[in-house]
C-alpha cells in the first residue's frame, strides 16, 4: 500500500525541499520505491538538490497538467544521486524551469483534480511505496488538495512567531480534512535555544508530535545545496534523524 506524504511549510525558506530529498533518500535506502512530485510550480527547487539539471529534463509536471504527456513520462530516476548501492528507487517529477511555463501556470492555473489523478496513476505505473509531495508554501488549492489526499503530513517550521501562526493555520485545516497522521519538524533552530524545551513547547502548543528538531547549521546549508546530505554523510546524527522520520511517516 503506497503512502502519500505531503511535506509542507507555511512560509518559504524552512528547508522543505531539502527535507523532502533527504527523506526520499532514507526511504530508498530502506529499499522503498519513492516518487517525489515538485508541486511548487511557482518556484521549483528540489531538482537542484537531487542533481537533475534542466538539460536532462524531458518532461515536467507542467506538461502533464497541460495534457501534453502522461504523468509517468515526467518521472526522472535520480536514484544515482541519493547514494551508492541504494536498494530502492527515487523518481523525481520536476516542475518546469522555463519562465514562460511558470508564468502560464500563474496566469491560467490548472485543474487540481488532474493533479490528484496524476498522483494515483504515478503510484500505479511506477509501483511506488511512497509518494512525497513537495508542496508550495502557504495554503493554495493544490496544497490543500495534496494535504487532503495524504496519509501523512509533515509540517516544517522554524522557531519564530510568523511560522508559529502559519503552522497553527495549516494544522487546523489538516484537522478539518481529517488527515490521519500529522508530524512536525522544527528546522533551523538557533544555538541559543534548548532543543528539549523547544520540543516540549511546540508539542504542547499544537498537541501534535514533533518528529525532529534540527539546528541551524551553515555547514548543512552549504552541503544541502550541493546534494543530498544524508547520502553523503549517512552516519551523521542528522541523517539518522531523517531515517527515524522516514520510518515514522511510513508506519
Amino acid at each position, binding site marked *: *500500500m503506497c503512502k*502519500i506524504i505531503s511535506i509542507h511549510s507555511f512560509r518559504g525558506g524552512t528547508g522543505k525541499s531539502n527535507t523532502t530529498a533527504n527523506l526520499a533518500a532514507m526511504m530508498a535506502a530502506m529499499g522503498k520505491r519513492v516518487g517525489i512530485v515538485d508541486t511548487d510550480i511557482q518556484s521549483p527547487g528540489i531538482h537542484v538538490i537531487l542533481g537533475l539539471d534542466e538539460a536532462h529534463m524531458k518532461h515536467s509536471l507542467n506538461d502533464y497538467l497541460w495534457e501534453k504527456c502522461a504523468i509517468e513520462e515526467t518521472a526522472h530516476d535520480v536514484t544515482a544521486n541519493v547514494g551508492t548501492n541504494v536498494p530502492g528507487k527515487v523518481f523525481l517529477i520536476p516542475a518546469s524551469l522555463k519562465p514562460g511555463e511558470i508564468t502560464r501556470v500563474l496566469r491560467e492555473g490548472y485543474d487540481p483534480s488532474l493533479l*490528484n489523478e496524476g498522483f*494515483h496513476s504515478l*503510484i500505479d505505473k511506477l509501483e511506488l511505496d511512497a509518494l512525497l509531495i513537495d508542496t508550495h508554501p502557504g*495554503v493554495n*488549492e493544490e496544497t*490543500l*488538495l495534496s494535504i*487532503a*489526499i495524504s*496519509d501523512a503530513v509533515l509540517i516544517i517550521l522554524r*522557531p519564530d*512567531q510568523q511560522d*508559529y*501562526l502559519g503552522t*497553527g*493555520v495549516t494544522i*487546523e*485545516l489538516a484537522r*478539518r*480534512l*481529517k488527515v490521519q497522521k500529522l508530524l512536525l519538524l522544527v528546522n533551523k533552530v538557533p544555538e*541559543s*535555544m*534548548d532543543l528539549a*524545551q*523547544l520540543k516540549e*513547547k*511546540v508539542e504542547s*502548543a499544537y498537541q501534535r508530535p514533533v518528529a525532529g528538531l534540527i539546528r541551524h547549521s551553515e555547514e548543512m546549508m552549504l552541503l544541502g545545496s550541493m546534494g543530498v546530505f544524508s547520502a553523503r554523510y549517512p552516519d551523521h546524527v542528522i541523517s539518522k534523524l531523517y531515517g527515524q522520520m522516514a520510518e515514522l511517516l511510513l508506519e
Partner: protein
Amino acid sequence: MSLRNRLLLLIALLLGAAVFGTYLVSILTAGQGALGVVIALLIVLSGAGLAFVFVSRMINAPLEKFRAAVASLQVGVYHRELLYDLLTRNDEIGQLALTFDRMAREVSTRDRRLKSLRGIIPLGVALSAEKDFSRLLETIVIEAQRITSADAGSLYLKTEDNQLKFVIMRNESLRMALGGTTGKAVSLRTVPLVDEQGNPNHNHIASYCAVTGKRVALADAYTTTEFDLSGTRAFDVETGYHSQSFLTMPLKDLAGEVIGVLQLINAQDPETQQVVPFEEDEVLDSLVLITSAALSAYIREESLREEINKLRIEVDLAKQKKQVDEIAESDYFKNLQSQAELMRKKRKS
C-alpha cells in the same frame, strides 16, 4: 606634676625625714641610751611605711586599670571609659593612657573590619544565588551601609537608554526605605548620562561616576562646587535631613562596563555617631567587587532568560481563526472536505 617629679619629691621628703630622724636620734640617744634608738627607728620605719603606701597608690591603681583595659581589648569589648580618669591626667600615665587608647581603638577598628571581611565571602555566595532581584539590590545597599556605618545609601542601575534609574533608597535616621522588597517604588526621576547635545553628563555625582567609572568622595557636599547637588538640597529641605559626607562608587561588570552606581551618605563614627568623611576601606572594595559580579551575573542570566522566553509560542488565536475561516469557508475547501475521505478510500480499495 609629672610622675618623675613626684618621685623626686618623695625621695627628697624621705631623705629629709631620714636626716630629721637621725637628728632626733642623736638628741634622744644623748640621754636615753637604747630606748632612744628604738624610738628613732620606729619613726624612720613608719615614714618608710607611709612612703610605700603612697608609691603603691601612685603606680598600682593605674596599672590595674591598664590591666582591665588590655583584658577587655583581648575579648573585643574595649571602651575608652575604662581609662577615663587616666586619659585626663597630665603625667606620663596620662600619656600612656592616650597612646594605649589610640592603639586599642585602631585594633578594634581592624578587628571589626576583619569580621566584616570574613562576612563578605558568605555574602557573595548568598548574593550570587539570590533569585529575587529586588532583594539582591536591597542587600547590596544594606551591606555597604553596614560596612561603612553610612546613615543613608542609594543604588542606581544603568538602563538601556543610557540613564541612571534610582532603584533603592534607604535612610536610617529618617527611617526611610524605598525600592527593593519594600514594594514602595523610588519616585525620584532618572538621571540622563548624556545631555541633549550628546555630551556626557558630568553635573551629577552619580552620572559623573557612571560616565567616567571613577569614585567620588566628598567630605562635605555643601561645600562642593563641582557638582549639581540641587536634588540633594531639595531632599534635605523637604525632610529636614543634612546630607554631608558622600561616597559614590561605580559597579562594573567583568568587561569593565558600568552597570550601576552605589552612593553612600553620611558615614558615622561608630562611637560618637558624628558624621565623618568616608575612608578608604578594603572591605567596602571587596563588597563592591562581589556585588558587581552578582549583579552582572543576574543581568546576564536575565537576558538569557529573555532569549529562552522567545521559545514561548504565542499564537494569536483570533488571527489564526480568521485565516482558517477564510479558507475553510471557500467552496473549494468545502468540496475538498467532502471528497477527501472518499479519495483516500478509493485509493485504498
